[in-house]
């Protein structure tokens, strides 16, 4: 659910001159006809590399995104909320497994992806480098971060790669409850005692800046981006996703009498576009490169799980087994 803010960088595979022109034409014609690409089809290097990167980052975001909410399970108020919070966290970890498998069909093993995550080589959604101070922070994540992720995932589910679409279809079906659960939890606090309202407003104030960066900086419209859009790897621009999110959720925040901590936020009646204070992209870059409040903790927790669980995996391992990529 947490696939936000993809920054598509140019790679050395940008040069399509090296690809077989006949195969490339056939590949592009298939996508233009609205057909999906399956793992054994021929595909350009650029397509393979960008999809691995994108699906892998999405998978990491699910597994790391489960941490800030996971820490609130034991402290969730009441048994029903504990059950729901647990079910949601379990869903997110399951989504990571679905996504790792989808990326594996493109040729990168799950082991390599997990090692790259722990060693800081591959990224996850930057919002999870911020802490969830209170129960209300956890609720804001469940509602608004999931909402942002759904905007993204609904778009990506229409992409051209078969295994990713299949995984996203299941993920979107499971997510329907997350959004409602998060909204319900926020509404409960916002319509509760003054203390509860104060708590949820404080959490919203803390999370608004990271939420505004969730979809990533404005895309540089290069031939690279244009190619990825034609291949249905990138389905919508970062700004379009951000606008769609604001359109759907700002009114829902306002109707609860909560305020959004951005004095410049308003919808321009003429253009139909939201205007807002430009997020702090320098901070975004600094945090995504490791210097955020929780980067070290998130990776340390993941690494510890990997290392302390190693003996169980080794004890279960079948020495005769050989690795085979998932089929679809």
């Amino acid at each position: 659910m947490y696939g936000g803010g993809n920054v598509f960088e140019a790679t050395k595979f940008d040069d399509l001159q090296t690809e077989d022109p006949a195969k490339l034409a056939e590949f592009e014609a298939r996508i233009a006809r609205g057909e999906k690409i399956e793992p054994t089809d021929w595909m350009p290097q650029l397509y393979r590399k960008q999809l691995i990167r994108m699906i892998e980052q999405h998978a990491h975001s699910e597994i790391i995104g489960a941490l800030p909410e996971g820490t609130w399970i034991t402290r969730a108020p009441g048994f029903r909320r504990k059950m729901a919070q647990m079910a949601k966290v379990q869903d997110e970890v399951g989504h990571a497994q679905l996504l790792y498998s989808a990326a594996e069909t493109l040729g990168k093993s799950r082991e390599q992806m997990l090692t790259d995550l722990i060693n800081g080589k591959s990224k996850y959604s930057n919002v999870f480098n911020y802490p969830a101070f209170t129960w209300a922070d956890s609720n804001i994540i469940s509602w608004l971060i999931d909402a942002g992720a759904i905007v993204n995932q609904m778009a990506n589910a229409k992409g051209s790669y078969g295994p990713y679409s299949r995984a996203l279809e299941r993920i979107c079906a499971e997510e329907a409850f997350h959004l409602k659960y998060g909204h319900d939890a926020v509404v409960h606090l916002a319509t509760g005692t003054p203390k509860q309202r104060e708590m949820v407003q404080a959490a919203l104030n803390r999370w608004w800046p990271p939420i505004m960066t969730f979809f990533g900086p404005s895309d540089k419209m290069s031939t690279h981006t244009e190619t990825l859009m034609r291949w249905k790897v990138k389905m919508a621009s970062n700004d379009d996703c951000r606008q769609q999110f604001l359109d759907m959720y700002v009114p829902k925040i306002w109707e609860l009498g909560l305020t959004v901590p951005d004095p410049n936020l308003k919808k321009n009646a003429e253009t139909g576009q939201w205007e807002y204070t430009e997020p702090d992209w320098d901070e975004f870059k600094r945090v995504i490169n490791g210097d955020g409040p929780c980067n070290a903790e998130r990776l340390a927790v993941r690494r510890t799980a990997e290392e302390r669980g190693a003996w169980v995996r080794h004890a279960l391992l079948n020495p005769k087994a050989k690795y085979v990529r998932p089929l679809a």
Partner: protein
Amino acid sequence: MSLKSLDPRVTRLHLPDGEVPPMEEKPALDQFETYEAFHQKKESTPHAYAGPVHAPNEDVAFLFAKEQYSRRFPCVSLWVVRTENIQVTPYANDGENVYDILRVEAPATQSEQPEPYEIFHLKKRGKAHTHVGRVVATSYQEALQEAKNQFGDKAPIVNVWVVKSKDVLQSAEDDKDMWATTPDKKYREAIAYKVMDKITKYKEENKNTPA
């Protein structure tokens, strides 16, 4: 120095703070081989491809598949197959029949004992393979030939998976109670959250107070 977290349980893990050496590369099979899972949502529908799982053996694969693919939605039966035991045909274009472009030849000599094979078809790229039936054959090739004879007219068929029935771990009739409590867990359904009622009530009560 160990890492201090907002979550006391994380602090109690005594995670090292500061620079740590990069984690070593893991062997390719650190998290096991892959299996493919198929689920049946209700008695009247065929088994359909759900997705892969990583597991050290068939039994654990079944357990993981049950958690991964039948946790949230109705299910009456689950199958798992080791990925390497699935024979895959090439993929045809959407709308085509893959059997027409395959050169399916039955082997000349029948050295093996006939045994049952399960056949799965993919109707459209991006969708899930579904089980169309079982054939009896002495090899994967012959099974594919048989499948073409018996099910080849169900076009479009863009891809076929062939699996020996003995390689499929199937849930038993007695296992069905695994899924008996799925519908009881209402807190996992969007419909259980009556958000609009609360919002309407709140607006009603506060319509005279400025926000």
